[in-house]
C-alpha cells in the first residue's frame, strides 16, 4: 500500500529530512519511506523505489511511503507529521518577540555575530555568503557544488570587506576553540592551521592534540583555493589574520599539491610574515600528515611519540586479493592512495591521482581501488558520509561479496557534527568482512574530548575485527603490507 504526497510551503534541510525518513522507514510494516525536498535527484530516488511521482518543484516536500497495510500507512504518515513537528525550530512565542530572521543579513543585524556558517544547497549558497560578507562576518561556506566563478567573486568581495571566506566546500574550522562544521574538540594552543583540506586538517589537529600541542585557530579555505583560478585568495587572507593573531606563534598550511605558480606566490607571501609558516603539501615525495604532525610538535617544543594503534589476529583468506579503500575524508583517501600506489602500482579511484586511473561512472572496483564518498558527485542531494555512513556501509558489504577483495581500508572521523557512533554502524559489516577472511584496517581521527569518545570508538572497531590506527598513514602502510605485492591486477 503506497501513498505519495507533495507538501507546499514547508522547507526542511536535507539532514533533518533524512532523519525523518529513517525514523519512518524503521516502523514495523513500512517497506520504504522517502521524506525529502522534491529535487530531481530525490524524485528519481522515489521513482526508483517504485513510487509514482507527480511533477514537483524543489520547493515542495515529497512524502512517499510504502507500507504493508492501510493501518501501517496511516501510522507512518502520522509519524511523518510528528517527526517533522519535532524537527521544526521553535518559534518566538513571547508577546512582541521578533519572528526568526529570514535572511543572513537579517540574522546578522539582530545580533553581535562575527561569524556565519552557510550550509545551504550549493546553487544558492553564494547569495547567502554574499549577505554574510556584506554584513562584515567571517564566513564559512560548508556548501559544496558552488560554481568556481562565484567562489572567486565571493573571495574578492571578502578581501575588500576585510573578512575571511572559508570554503566553499569547507568542512572544518576551529575559531578560538569553537568548532564549526566537522571539527574535533582540541585543546587551545599556539598552532594556527590554514587548511585547503578538511580531513587533512582534522588528522593534523587530532595528532597534535594527542601529542599535547594545541591549536589557536584552524581556518579552512576550501579545496580549490590553491588552484590557478582562485590563486590562494583565502589562503593569503587567512595567513594575514593568523599573523596578526596574538594566540598564534606557528602556522601550518595543509593542502594537496597546489598549482605551482600559486604555491610560489603563497610561499613568498608567507615569507613576509612575522610568524613562521610550515607547509604540509600532500603529494609524491612530500611527507605524510603524520610526519608533518611530528615536525610541528617538535617546532612547538612538544614531545612526539608514534600515534597509538590496536591490532589483532590476521585474517586468513583472500591473500591474492586487491586493496579496497572506502573513505569519508578526501585527503585521507589521497594520502592512502599516495602510499599504496608507491608500493602496489595504480590505484583506481573516483578522485584518481593519475587521470588514467579513474573509475568508470558506475564506480565499480577494478584491482586496487579507493573511493572518496565525500566527493561532490557522491554528496549531491544527500548528506556527507561523515554524517550518514549508509552509502559506504552498502559498498563495504558489496566489497565483502566481491571475490577479488583482499584487504579493506577505511577511515573513521570523529568530532562535532560527525555521526554519533560510527563504530557501531560499521560493526556488523566489519564482522562480515573478518568472517569472510578479509582483514580490515581503519584509521581513526579523533581526540579524547570528541563527543563520540576516542577510546570507546577504537575499542568497538577493534572488537568488530578491525585493526585501528590513529595515524591514517600508518593505517595505509599496514593495509599495503597486508595486501602484499601480488594483490590486484594493476
Amino acid at each position, binding site marked *: 500500500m503506497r501513498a505519495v504526497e507533495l507538501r507546499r510551503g514547508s522547507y526542511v534541510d536535507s539532514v533533518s529530512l533524512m532523519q525523518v525518513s529513517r525514523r519512518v522507514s524503521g516502523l514495523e510494516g513500512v517497506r520504504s519511506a522517502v521524506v525529502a525536498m522534491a529535487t530531481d535527484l530525490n524524485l528519481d530516488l522515489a521513482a526508483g523505489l517504485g513510487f509514482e511521482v507527480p511533477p514537483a518543484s524543489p520547493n515542495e516536500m515529497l512524502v512517499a511511503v510504502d507500507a504493508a497495510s492501510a493501518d501501517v500507512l496511516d501510522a507512518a504518515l502520522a509519524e511523518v507529521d510528528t517527526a517533522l513537528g519535532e524537527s521544526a525550530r521553535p518559534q518566538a512565542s513571547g508577546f512582541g518577540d521578533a519572528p526568526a530572521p529570514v535572511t543572513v543579513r537579517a*540574522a546578522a543585524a539582530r545580533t553581535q555575530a562575527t561569524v556565519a556558517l552557510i550550509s545551504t544547497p550549493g546553487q544558492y549558497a553564494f547569495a547567502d555568503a554574499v549577505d554574510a560578507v556584506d554584513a562584515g562576518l567571517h564566513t564559512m561556506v560548508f556548501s559544496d557544488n558552488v560554481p568556481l566563478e562565484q567562489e572567486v567573486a565571493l573571495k574578492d568581495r571578502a578581501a575588500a570587506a576585510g573578512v575571511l571566506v572559508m570554503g566553499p566546500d569547507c568542512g572544518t574550522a576551529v*575559531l578560538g576553540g569553537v568548532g564549526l562544521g566537522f571539527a574535533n574538540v582540541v585543546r587551545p594552543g599556539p598552532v594556527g592551521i590554514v587548511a585547503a583540506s578538511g580531513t587533512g586538517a582534522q588528522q593534523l589537529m587530532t595528532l597534535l592534540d594527542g601529542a599535547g600541542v594545541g591549536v589557536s585557530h584552524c581556518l579552512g579555505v576550501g579545496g580549490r583555493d590553491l588552484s590557478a583560478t582562485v590563486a590562494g585568495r583565502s589562503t593569503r587572507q587567512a595567513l594575514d589574520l593568523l599573523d596578526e593573531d596574538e594566540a598564534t606563534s606557528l602556522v601550518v598550511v595543509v593542502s594537496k599539491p597546489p598549482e605551482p605558480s600559486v604555491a610560489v606566490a603563497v610561499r613568498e607571501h608567507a615569507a613576509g610574515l612575522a610568524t613562521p609558516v610550515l607547509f604540509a603539501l600532500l603529494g609524491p615525495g612530500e611527507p605524510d600528515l603524520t610526519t608533518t604532525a611530528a615536525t610541528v610538535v617538535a617546532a612547538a617544543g612538544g614531545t612526539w611519540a608514534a600515534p597509538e594503534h590496536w591490532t589483532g589476529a590476521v585474517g586468513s583468506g583472500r591473500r591474492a586479493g586487491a586493496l579496497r579503500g572506502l573513505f569519508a575524508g578526501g585527503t585521507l583517501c589521497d594520502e592512502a592512495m599516495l602510499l599504496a600506489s608507491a608500493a602496489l602500482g595504480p590505484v583506481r579511484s573516483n578522485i584518481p591521482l593519475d587521470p588514467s586511473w579513474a573509475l568508470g561512472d558506475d564506480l565499480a572496483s577494478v584491482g586496487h581501488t579507493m573511493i572518496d564518498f565525500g566527493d561532490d558527485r557522491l554528496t549531491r542531494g544527500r548528506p556527507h558520509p561523515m554524517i550518514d555512513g549508509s552509502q559506504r556501509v552498502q559498498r563495504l558489504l558489496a566489497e565483502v561479496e566481491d571475490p577479488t577483495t583482499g584487504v579493506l581500508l577505511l577511515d573513521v572521523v570523529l568530532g562535532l557534527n560527525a555521526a554519533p557512533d560510527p563504530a557501531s554502524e560499521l560493526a556488523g559489516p566489519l564482522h562480515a568482512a573478518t568472517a569472510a577472511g578479509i582483514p580490515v584496517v581503519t584509521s581513526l581521527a579523533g581526540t579524547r574530548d570528541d563527543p563520540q569518545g576516542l577510546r570507546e570508538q577504537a575499542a568497538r572497531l577493534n572488537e568488530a575485527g578491525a585493526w585501528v590506527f590513529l595515524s591514517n598513514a600508518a593505517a595505509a602502510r599496514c593495509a599495503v603490507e597486508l595486501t602484499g605485492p601480488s594483490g590486484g591486477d594493476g
Partner: protein
Amino acid sequence: MSLGTPSVVVTAGAAMFADALALQGVGVSAVQWQPPAGDPASVAAVMGDPRRAAANARALEAMLGAQAHLVDVLPAAEALGLERGQFLHAGPPVEWERASGPLRGALIGAMLFEGLADSPASAEQALAAGAGVGWEPCHSRGAVGPMAGVVSPSMWMFCLRDEANGTTSWCSLNEGLGKVLRYGAYDEEVLSRLRWMSDVLGPLLQQAVRGQEPVDVRAVISQMVQMGDEGHNRNRAGTLMFLREVLPALIDSGRPSADVAAAVRFVAGNDHFFLNLVMPACKLQTAAAAGIPGSSVVTVMARNGTDFGIQTAGTGDTWFTAPANTPEGLFLGAFGPEDANPDIGDSAITETAGLGGLSMATAPAIVRFVGGAVPDALATTQRMYDITVGENPAFAIPILEFRGAPTGIDVTSVVRSGVLPQINTGMAGRVAGTGQVGAGLVTPPMACFTQALDALAGSVLRS
C-alpha cells in the same frame, strides 16, 4: 576583522550545525531559510552585483531625504494638463477588455461626471470603443490614486512638492467610504458628491492652502505614526491634524460659513481624508530613489484590480506585473469573499514607503479590522525589517522602542526569503457600481519580484 572566539554565529542551512554550536555554548542566530522563489542564476547575479550595496544605500538615503509640502490644490486639467477625454487610473496600464469591475465603474462615473456620456450604457460603449477617450496610469504622470484611482480633468487634486529633489506629486481629494467613485460606484449620490467637491471643497482648500505656509505633510505623518495611524487603513490622527493646519485659513476665507462648515464636516467625517496626502508624500519619497542603476529597491507597488505591478530603482519605469491577489479580511454588511474584487489601487505606495502594512505594529487599533491580533501586527513589522534595506527615523514606531519604519523593499530579500511585503487595503466590489465591500490584508504576487530580479540580473550583464 581580527580572529577571536565568536560569541554568536549566524547559521543558514543544516540545523545540526546550529545545534552543535549551541552545545558548545555559542550563541546562534539561525536563519529560517528556504530556497529562493526565483531563478538561482538571477539571484546570484544580482547578489554579486558590485553596485548593489552602494546603490541600495543611495536609494535609502534618497528616500529618507525626500520632503513633502502641500503647496496647492487645483483641478487636474491645470495640475497635469489633463485634457477632455483623458483619464488617469491606478496601477499598471490595462486595456478595457481586461479592466476590473471597479475600474470600469470608476471610468463610467468619470465619463458621466465630465458630461462625456449621458448614461452608464453609453459611457461604457464609448470606453469599450476607445472613441475619443483614453487612460493611462497615474504613476506615468507622477501622480497616485487610491483604489480605482480614476482622475478626470475636472477633479481637484492636492499638489505636493519635494524641494529637496525638485519633484511634484498629485493625488485626488478623498471622497469618503462606502459608495464612492474610487470603489467603482457611479450613481447620482456619487456624482453629486464629486460635483460638490469640485464646486465647493476644492476651491475652499485652494484658497486656504495658497493663503498660508505650505503644510509639511511629512511632519504630520511623523506625528500620526506615533498616534496609532499606519497611514494606509488608518488615517484618523492625520486627518484631524491636517484639519488643524487648514482650519484657521478656511474660517478666514470669507466664503459662506455654510460652505466652510460643510467642508469641515466632510473632512472631519472621513477618517481617510488624509490618505490622499499620505499617498503623494510617499510617492515623492519613493520617486527620490528612482533611476539608481544597480539598486534592487522597489519604488512603486500599484494595482489596477486586474494586475499588480511594481517598479524598481534599478530598472527605470518598466512595470513588472502579474495577476493581483484578492485581499482577505472583514466584509461590510452582507458582502462576502465572493463579492471582492482582486487587489486595486495606488495606495500600496504607502507600503512602498514603509507605512501601511509594513508599519502595522504602530496601529494596533485596527488589527481586528484587518483580521489579526496585536502580536501579529508586532511580528509583521519586525518581519518587514528582514526584506527592507533600512529604517526611516522620521517615522518612528513607539511600541518598537521608536524604531524607524522598515523602508526600501529589497527585491533580492523578497525573492530569497519568500516573504512578501504586507499590504493593508480596502476591498472593492467585483461588479462595477458596487462600491466598497470590506477591508483586509493582501500581498503582491511573487512573480512581480522574480521578473524584476531577472531584469536586474540582465542589467548586471550590461553594466
